[in-house]
């Protein structure tokens, strides 16, 4: 994992984790994009041999600890969403940036619904449409993150 500048991958994941727990005003907070999911999807598309379902699960577990949710909830949702991207990486790579963004949106929606369903099983939470707002911001964010991370990957020659 750490060979060939793999530390950059870990650093980008850590930054994404920090961005997803950074305190924000309440109104903006509902629109917080899924930083971790986007970064994980990028690496699993670009380097499927290095970033895989297990990486996603471990990152999701850290997120679980940080968010104080029941351990394993975000981890499972993250692993499942990244699995779908990782299995179809050859197809998704050939799509244009905006088509990829839509797929990321679908995966983000799946991620949020999975987390909601699991929370629903454990406690009686009620669904609010605002739980899916992050999907919109994630779609908008994907092209920028993709271009930035591709630049980073080429600059550090991560393979």
């Amino acid at each position: 994992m750490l060979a060939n500048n793999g530390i950059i991958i870990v650093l980008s994941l850590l930054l994404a984790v920090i961005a997803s727990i950074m305190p924000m005003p309440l109104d903006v907070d509902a629109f917080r994009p899924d930083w971790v999911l986007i970064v994980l999807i990028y690496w699993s598309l670009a380097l499927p041999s290095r970033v895989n379902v297990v990486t996603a699960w471990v990152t999701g577990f850290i997120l679980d600890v940080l968010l104080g949710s029941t351990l394993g909830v975000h981890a499972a949702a993250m692993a499942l969403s990244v699995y779908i991207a990782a299995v179809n990486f050859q197809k998704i790579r050939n799509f244009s940036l905006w088509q990829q963004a839509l797929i990321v949106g679908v995966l983000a929606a799946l991620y949020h619904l999975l987390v909601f369903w699991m929370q629903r099983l454990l406690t009686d939470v009620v669904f609010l449409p605002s739980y899916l707002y992050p999907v919109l911001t994630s779609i908008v964010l994907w092209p920028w993150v993709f271009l930035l991370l591709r630049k980073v990957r080429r600059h550090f020659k991560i393979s």
Partner: protein
Amino acid sequence: MNPIFKHGPSPQHRLAFVLMLSAALVFFDHRMGSFEGVRGYLQSLVSPLQYMANTPKQLMTWAAENLITRKQLIEENQALKINELNYQQQMMELEIVKKENERLRSLLASPLRSDTKKMVAEILSVDSDPYTHQLVINRGANDGVYEGQAVIDEQGIVGQILHVGTTSSRVILITDVTHAVPVRVSRNGTRLVANGAGRIERLSHAHVPHSADVQSGDLLVTSGLGGKYPEGYPVSQVILVRKDESRPFAQVLSKPVAQIDKLRYLLLLWPNKPTSIFAPKPSEKSTNQNDKVENQVKGATNASE
């Protein structure tokens, strides 16, 4: 290089493995609660991340506090002085009332209330997860924080300590769906339970009979039943009472008096003696064992009286 032939288990196997791991974790964490101790260590492990995530906000606060004109400072100072004068005057009154109350209580042979130890804590982070209402504060086991400890702000009850790390700990807010506070109406003492509704500005009250004397605008204070929260701190204000006879119970909603979305500093309370027999033991991590024994002895003498 990307290998043409992949090594290691296939993605399907990996997925099945991690999903089973997740299911096991969820089961042991949620149903059995076997991670309560481990959570503390995990919390300490990730607290550097939380401190890091908090830096931008702290920089902003620092800038906002330092980039201020002299005039603003003088105005603020004056306002604070006036406030302090008011509070001093109220303190004097309170002192007299407190003495009087103690005298009356001793006349009634009921146990005296003693001052509680307090500590100010600052908020490190608020959870972005919409399903849980929790936040992290910068006090931990090193400061003597214990699980189940009451947390208040200047207006009222905020929540209680959920997990304790070494330098930080996690607070569950009263608005979390899994949280409930025993309260009473301060006007007449009717007992209710305030359940979190998963929304910042809402608490719900289940199983309120139609005959209960609850009106919109009533202040609800902690009743001290259950032993987690000390008695008499404001919790919420009733905003809606709907007595529809076709339903089995009256519908009562209230709004927390603590400004839960605008918190910055919190106060941790250490009750000197358990408020009820169900009260949590003083933290086992605390070093002074004598204190604990003393408490128990005190409790025993109180009971014998």
